[in-house]
């Protein structure tokens, strides 16, 4: 009898453990993969975007997660390198059960990961600057093979260029010189400016290239200046942003300088120093939140987010932090709506309309996997170590 009782007790305990662990199982976190350039040349962007995503996930978890399940980001580093990016992606997909992907940071890494993502059928919200990840067909022979699972959160590079040209048109700038870094991003800019400039009556009278690691661009700028330009556009990220600003001051060139939509970041002041004063660029509203008119429907969201970012990380967000935040918010919203199912999340993202984000108002559709428009972009001017909103 005693022995029977003991068996019963053991059985009860065992069963209760089993029930308990299955309860734990149902509360297992929902995993999202975060793949960023945490090292390599785009490390400053990737790290900031990673932080932006973490902040969004923390916020959701503090509000109790999704149906009692916490969110968790599984992180990998692309090292700013397309091959490493694909390896990171495979590693995550093979070892973890993730419902969506956020990232990567660079266009090159995004292009390398895209085919694999489409094959695996997992929704991915990328931060790639280049539009090519949405525009280029997956299969070169089939022009209709457009990506189905790939989205991108930054506004289109073509719109950023359009915004600059529109601004130039408004301020009577007619003849411009274009200087670009001789790699993917710079060449993409060159293609865009050739399309956008004529739309706004702006003529490109000079175009010059430099290598991304060059330490002096005075030769290129001298050549551009000799053509008598009203303004210069420089399309590059990294130290060259600062070198060009310095070289222009050195040569005494009076034409105003415009830089790309990635320049609105604290790193700009680190590389440009005093010479950065007066440089203009397209940006998300995140760097000029407090200067937005009260009528701006994004203002509250932007200011709240910036405050949370500053509190958590103790530094100023750059323009590209917005892309990480929006990608995370939209994916979290989608999971809240439809649950942790890859295909349903994809559909929910594709049906996001009128979403007021940090980067702008997203109207995503099957035809447009980005959803931002030129009106979401603002022009800003580098002023005294900070940014001034232009109109």
């Amino acid at each position, binding site marked *: 009898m005693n022995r029977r009782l003991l068996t019963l007790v053991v059985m009860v305990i065992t069963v209760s453990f089993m029930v308990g662990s299955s309860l734990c199982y149902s509360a297992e976190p929902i995993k999202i993969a975060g793949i960023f350039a945490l090292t390599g040349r785009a490390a400053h962007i990737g790290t900031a975007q990673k932080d932006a995503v973490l902040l969004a996930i923390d916020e959701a978890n503090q509000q109790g997660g999704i149906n009692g399940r916490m969110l968790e980001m599984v992180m990998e580093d692309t090292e700013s390198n397309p091959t490493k990016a694909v390896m990171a992606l495979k590693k995550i997909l093979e070892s973890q059960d993730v419902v969506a992907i956020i990232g990567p940071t660079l266009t090159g890494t995004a292009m390398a990961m895209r085919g694999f993502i489409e094959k695996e059928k997992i929704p991915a919200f990328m931060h790639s600057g280049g539009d090519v990840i949405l525009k280029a067909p997956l299969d070169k022979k089939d022009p209709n093979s457009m990506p189905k699972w790939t989205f991108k959160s930054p506004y289109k590079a073509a719109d950023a260029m359009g915004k600059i040209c529109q601004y130039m048109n408004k301020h009577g700038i007619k003849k411009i010189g274009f200087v670009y870094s001789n790699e993917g991003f710079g060449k993409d800019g060159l293609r865009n400016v050739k399309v956008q400039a004529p739309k706004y009556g702006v003529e490109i009278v000079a175009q010059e290239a430099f290598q991304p690691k060059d330490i002096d661009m*005075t*030769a*290129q700028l001298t050549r551009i*200046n000799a053509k008598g330009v009203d303004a210069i556009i420089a399309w590059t990220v990294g130290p060259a942003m600062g*070198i060009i600003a310095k070289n222009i*001051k050195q040569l005494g060139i009076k034409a105003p300088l415009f830089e790309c939509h990635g320049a609105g970041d604290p790193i700009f002041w*680190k*590389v440009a120093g005093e010479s950065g004063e007066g440089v203009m660029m397209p940006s998300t509203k995140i760097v000029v939140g407090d200067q937005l008119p009260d009528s701006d429907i994004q203002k509250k969201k932007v200011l709240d987010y910036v405050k949370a970012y500053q509190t958590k990380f103790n530094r100023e967000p750059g323009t590209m932090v917005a892309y990480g935040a929006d990608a995370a918010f939209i994916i979290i919203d989608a999971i809240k709506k439809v649950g942790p199912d890859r295909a349903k999340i994809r559909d929910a993202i594709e049906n996001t309309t009128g979403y007021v984000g940090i980067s702008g108002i997203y109207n995503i559709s099957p035809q447009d996997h980005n959803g931002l428009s030129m009106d979401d972009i603002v022009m800003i001017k580098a002023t005294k170590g900070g940014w001034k909103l232009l109109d």
Partner: protein
Amino acid sequence: MDFSQQIAQYIITGLTIGAIYAIVAMGFNIIHNATGIVNFAQCEFISLGGMFMYSLAVLFKVNLIIAFFISMAGVALIGALIEMGPIRHARSKEIIILIFLTIGLSEILRGAAQEVWGTDNVGVPAFSGEAPIHLPGGAAIVPQHLWIFAITVMVMLMLRYFFKKTLMGKAMRATAVNRRAAALAGISVNRMVLFSFAFSGALGAVAGMIIAPISSTSYDTGIMLGLKGFAAAILGGYGNFAGAILGGIILGILESLGAGLISSQYKDAIAFFVLLLVLFLKPTGIMGYGESERV
């Protein structure tokens, strides 16, 4: 800006960049002469110079002149440690193995620098302001360019004095010409090799520091400058000091004129095409004497 002014600007720019290449090339040459190897860690000496300068001058607000000399000494010490550790204790003294050793060391130094400073590019204040100076020919430069010229010339003069007039300099040259004979004459070859690494570290640091205010600096800025400096050393004649200066300046001016007059897209290609052409016509470089000198 008329054409002659443009040409003046291209040449001035080329000279500045060329001066940096020349200093880097000198660093390569000093170690080559003492040991016969190519020291690829030279690239890291440049980055470290810039980053030390940034840490001292920007983070710790040390006076620029003091920061300059501390950084120089710091990188010289790292150079010396490299020699005292891995290079001296390498089991094999085969040139090719020592060269690979320096490649490995360079990776280690770069990785360490990345851990310490992160990957961001950072600026260093110019030594004396950024107000442009307009030269009579119509070219414009910033005061930092004058510093680059002045420091390069001073470094060259000091090196010349050191190698021609001082006992230690002569001993180093003797080691370069014939190690065994030098050792027989009572010269401590090990010590000469040690000094050559320290010198080369200091030179790399100087190059990294004087260019940092213009180009900003990061844990890996030295790679590109190092490779260009290496090309300059080869162009001038590897191991030859006058050749290093000439090679640096020619390479700098070629790049600048190539970008300004022909095509900015192919400026490196133009410069390296000329480099190949020179090596094709005179494989020892412009001022090289060939192998017969050091047997």
